[in-house]
């Protein structure tokens, strides 16, 4: 075995040595034979001739020896590759164009695939992650699906559901804490978790330890776990950080007990610090503990327990809880989702769409390179004929042509990999915040394999046409006609197929981009119910430790609003608990005094300080807004939005009615009087129509987390008061960090950033696709003009008008475009259905988009056809006829 490998290796790498040996051996043989004849009495010359005759052909022996080395095909390949490099180098302008085109296609596809890989394929950083599931609550009556969980229900599941090894809970909404004592106050994003969080996930901290189960309940300890990023940035990667304390401004300092491993991204990639729940021991028995839903729950299935079995055992407990706690759990369901699906969530669809778009771009690139190689093959038709004439088989010639494509695709693929690597980095940097649920996009073996596979397939794909065309010619043709045979059917037919294909693909891609952009345009034109122009927003959360009475909270925001109101250029300042188009969860029941219960309702509610509605230009439709006179001493009042009136009081004036947030009012219910009706703002997102909403005055319902909104006088830039606003906050509380300070226009546009990002990216792909397709049309027609140059000359010589000659070429281009555009439109009709769920008020068959795209590509394509047509009409009858 070893010996034969050595022989093969020697044959490969010491070719000259092996040849000499064979030569020597055969020569020795011939001489020995000749000696024999000389001994029989022949002359030396006769003896040598006789010996050669007896041996047969030495060349054949040598050749069969070469065949017998077992390295023939490899050697041929090496030869083919060398030859391909040489011919590509001779045609380097064309080769460079091909490599760049491929780099673009492979690069785009690789970049998107890296993101797909990071989000959907990579092993999650949890031990045995196949056994992890997300457990959620649902309530069909309230339209709750995959909802957050009430803590008491979580504890009951944890104790009663047999299918789980462990069940942990965490918060996934943004909570902020302010890190003090390390320079400027640092705002950190915190997630609260149960003590068993890391052990259920099967994650070992990078440093130190996780929390203890006892940390669920307040025991005087304040343990905290840092993210890898905060540890690196704020603590300079100091390994002695474990055991140190840090202050969030509260009474007790927090002790750092651990550091998360790099890339840990639950609940979000942006989480800075994990803190334990630390509930008061009395919580378990309280009503709100089962009524308020706000935790995410992750469970580890016992070994060998299927999802179905786990779900069944969960349902048993859910039923028990429904009968045990009718007040809170009547319609409360629950379910499970594998953790991977949970994390990928709604990122999957956009990623798949982007990957498809990049893939189409790559196909267009392949068609283009295929065309380039056809032109290249044309230049080599003499070579090929010669090879046929010398006895090369069709297979051998086809293989040579394919090798050439593969060499080109390998170079293009390598360049594409580099482009893809940079593209992936760009994608991560430019993504709308939080779109990709990962901290990093790594290039691992899957990305390598993908790119290599993609490159090889592309090479075979675009190499197919030249290989077929090249082998179709007969040896005699080329030698007879001066190397022009490919000008015939094969070359032109394949060139046309490729151009029609790439025009069609470009049309499809552009329609996709057009639909997404049109949908984004629709979205950005949606009247959000407020005027985002000229408003600065500042989000704050004041810590309960220093603002321990509701009065302090009210006073803080009242003073802040007054200070900001005094800044120059400010028209009106107010505050609201959550800005429109960014609102998450928080919803309540609704009951109207003296009326039968409304059943389960799902009403949003927010608190406002100052004249929020005037500041945001939300119209007051009826009644009055809040005033400073609405305090905790006066009867509770609320405003309702238009959407609520339409749903619950379609035919009456609700002003003066009294409502409560309790589903079934009792003696403890707090009744609030509706004093006015305001216009509806878009709440959760721009795309979702407004939901019924209730506003309460901050003075009656104080909240520590509020966003200040400052409306500027006409023509004033809101950012001019950014620094003074910071100053005003600092003057009131020097330990307070502002969570976010941005114009309302940015908040509004960020609410549509995902749609914009996806639309823009697909548009970039489409633009590149159009450019390539147009170059394709141009290339084929230019080639046509060149090969029919003589014909043009003859036509002109025979009296054809120049315009007629031009028309000939233009007509040819128009035919290609019509075929390409028509096929593209037809395919798009079906293919764009996948976009349906991503589109806002635009149908996937939107006629306008289809029409504009067809027109656009038609016009641009005709321009591309016009240039070669012009050139054709300049053919000079005299010189063309003389040139051959």
């Amino acid at each position, binding site marked *: *075995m070893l*010996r*034969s490998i050595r*022989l*093969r290796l020697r044959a490969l790498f010491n070719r000259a040595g092996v040849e000499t*040996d*064979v030569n*020597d*051996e*055969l020569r*020795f*043989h011939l*001489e*020995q*034979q000749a000696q024999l004849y000389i001994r029989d009495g022949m002359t030396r010359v006769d003896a040598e001739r006789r010996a050669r005759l*007896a*041996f*047969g*052909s*030495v060349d*054949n*022996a040598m050749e*069969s*020896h070469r*065949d*017998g*080395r*077992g390295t023939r095909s490899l050697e041929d390949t090496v030869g083919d590759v060398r030859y391909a490099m040489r011919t590509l180098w001779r045609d380097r302008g064309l080769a460079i164009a091909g490599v760049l085109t491929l780099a673009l296609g492979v690069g785009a596809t690789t970049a998107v695939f890296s993101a797909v890989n990071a989000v959907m394929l990579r092993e999650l950083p949890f031990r045995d992650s196949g056994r992890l599931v997300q457990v959620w609550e649902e309530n069909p009556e309230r339209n709750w699906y995959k909802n957050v969980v009430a803590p008491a229900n979580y504890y009951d599941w944890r104790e009663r559901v047999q299918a789980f090894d462990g069940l942990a809970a965490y918060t996934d909404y943004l909570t902020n804490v302010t890190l003090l004592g390390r320079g400027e106050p640092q705002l950190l994003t915190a997630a609260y978790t149960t003590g068993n969080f890391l052990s259920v996930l099967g994650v070992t901290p990078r440093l130190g330890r996780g929390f203890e189960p006892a940390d669920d309940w307040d025991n005087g300890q304040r343990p905290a776990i840092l993210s890898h990023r905060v540890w690196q940035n704020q603590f300079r990667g100091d390994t002695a950080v474990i055991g140190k304390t840090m202050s969030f401004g509260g009474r007790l300092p927090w002790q750092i007990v651990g550091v998360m491993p790099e890339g840990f991204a639950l609940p979000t990639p942006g989480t800075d610090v994990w803190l334990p729940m630390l509930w008061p021991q009395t919580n378990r028995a309280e009503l709100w503990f089962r009524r308020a839903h706000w935790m995410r729950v992750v469970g580890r299935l016992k070994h060998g327990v299927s999802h179905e079995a786990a779900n069944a055992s969960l349902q048993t407990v859910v039923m028990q809880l429904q009968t045990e706690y009718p007040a809170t759990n009547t319609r409360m369901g629950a379910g499970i989702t594998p953790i991977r699906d949970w994390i990928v969530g709604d990122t999957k669809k956009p990623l798949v769409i982007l990957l498809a778009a990049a893939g189409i771009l790559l196909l267009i690139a392949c068609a283009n390179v295929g065309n380039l190689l056809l032109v290249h093959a044309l230049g080599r038709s003499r070579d090929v004929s010669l090879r046929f004439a010398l006895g090369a088989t069709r297979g051998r010639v086809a293989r040579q042509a394919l090798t050439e494509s593969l060499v080109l695709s390998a170079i293009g693929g390598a360049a594409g990999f580099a482009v893809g690597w940079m593209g992936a980095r760009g994608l991560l940097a430019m993504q709308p915040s939080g779109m990709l649920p990962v901290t990093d996009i790594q290039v691992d073996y899957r990305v390598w394999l993908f790119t290599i596979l993609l490159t090889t397939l592309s090479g075979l794909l675009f190499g197919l046409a030249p290989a077929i065309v090249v082998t179709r010619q007969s040896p005699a043709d080329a030698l007879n006609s001066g190397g022009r045979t490919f000008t015939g059917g094969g070359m032109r037919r394949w060139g046309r197929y490729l151009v029609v294909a790439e025009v069609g693909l470009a049309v499809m891609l552009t329609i996709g981009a057009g639909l997404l952009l049109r949908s984004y345009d629709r979205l950005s034109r949606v009247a959000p119910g407020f005027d985002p122009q000229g408003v600065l927003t500042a989000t704050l959360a004041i810590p309960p430790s220093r603002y321990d009475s509701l009065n302090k909270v009210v006073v803080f925001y009242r003073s802040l609003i007054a200070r900001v109101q005094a800044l120059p250029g400010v028209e009106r300042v107010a505050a609201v608990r959550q800005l429109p188009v960014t609102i998450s969860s928080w919803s309540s029941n609704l009951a109207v005094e003296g009326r039968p219960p409304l059943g389960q309702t799902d009403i949003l509610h927010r608190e406002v300080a100052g004249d929020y509605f005037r500041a945001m230009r939300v119209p007051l439709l009826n009644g009055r807004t809040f005033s400073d006179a609405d305090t905790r001493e006066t009867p509770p009042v609320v405003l309702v939005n238009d959407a609520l009136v339409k749903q619950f009081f379609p035919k009456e004036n609700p002003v003066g009615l009294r409502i409560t947030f309790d589903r079934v009012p009792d003696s403890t219910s707090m009744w609030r009087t509706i004093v006015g009706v305001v216009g509806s703002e878009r709440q959760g997102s721009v795309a979702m129509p407004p939901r019924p909403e209730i506003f309460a005055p901050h003075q009656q319902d104080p909240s520590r987390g509020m966003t200040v909104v400052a409306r500027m006088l006409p023509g004033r830039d809101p950012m001019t008061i950014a620094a003074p606003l910071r100053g005003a906050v600092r003057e009131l509380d020097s330990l307070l960090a502002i969570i976010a300070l941005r114009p309302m226009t940015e908040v509004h546009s960020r609410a549509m950033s995902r749609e914009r990002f996806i639309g823009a990216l697909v548009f970039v792909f489409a633009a590149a696709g159009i450019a390539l397709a147009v170059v394709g049309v141009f290339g084929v027609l230019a080639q046509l003009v060149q090969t029919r140059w003589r014909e043009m000359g003859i036509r002109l010589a025979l009296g054809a008008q120049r315009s007629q000659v031009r028309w000939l070429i233009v007509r040819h281009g128009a035919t290609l475009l019509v075929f390409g555009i028509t096929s593209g439109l037809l395919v798009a009709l079906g293919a764009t259905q996948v976009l349906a769920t991503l589109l806002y008020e635009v149908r996937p068959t939107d006629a306008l988009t289809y029409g504009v795209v067809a027109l656009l590509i038609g016009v641009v394509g005709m321009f591309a056809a016009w240039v070669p047509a012009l050139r054709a009409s300049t053919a000079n009858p005299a010189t063309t006829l003389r040139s051959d």
Partner: protein
Amino acid sequence: MKDLAPSDVLRGTLDLLVLKTLTLEPMHGWGISQRIQQMSRSVLDVNQGSLYPALQRLELKEWIDSEWRASDNNRRAKYYRLTAKGRRALGAETESWRRYVVAVEDILATT
């Protein structure tokens, strides 16, 4: 005495003959061709051109081994030697050849 043995049959059994020849001593290519001719009393005239591919084939199978050394007349020549693997192969090949010959004999006898 030429062409008495159809070369096709010879080609199939050339490997066998080469192996057999090499059981005596290491030998170079020309020597092998001479020895086969002698042993068959010139009935088998080895096609010299096809001997070398056969040697190459056997060497890749590791049935024989080769080295360069000085010949009787002090020239540099490539000598082939039977390997242990080759010796075993010779046994098996001889066996199957004999069965083949018997089978052919039987057919010829019955008709």
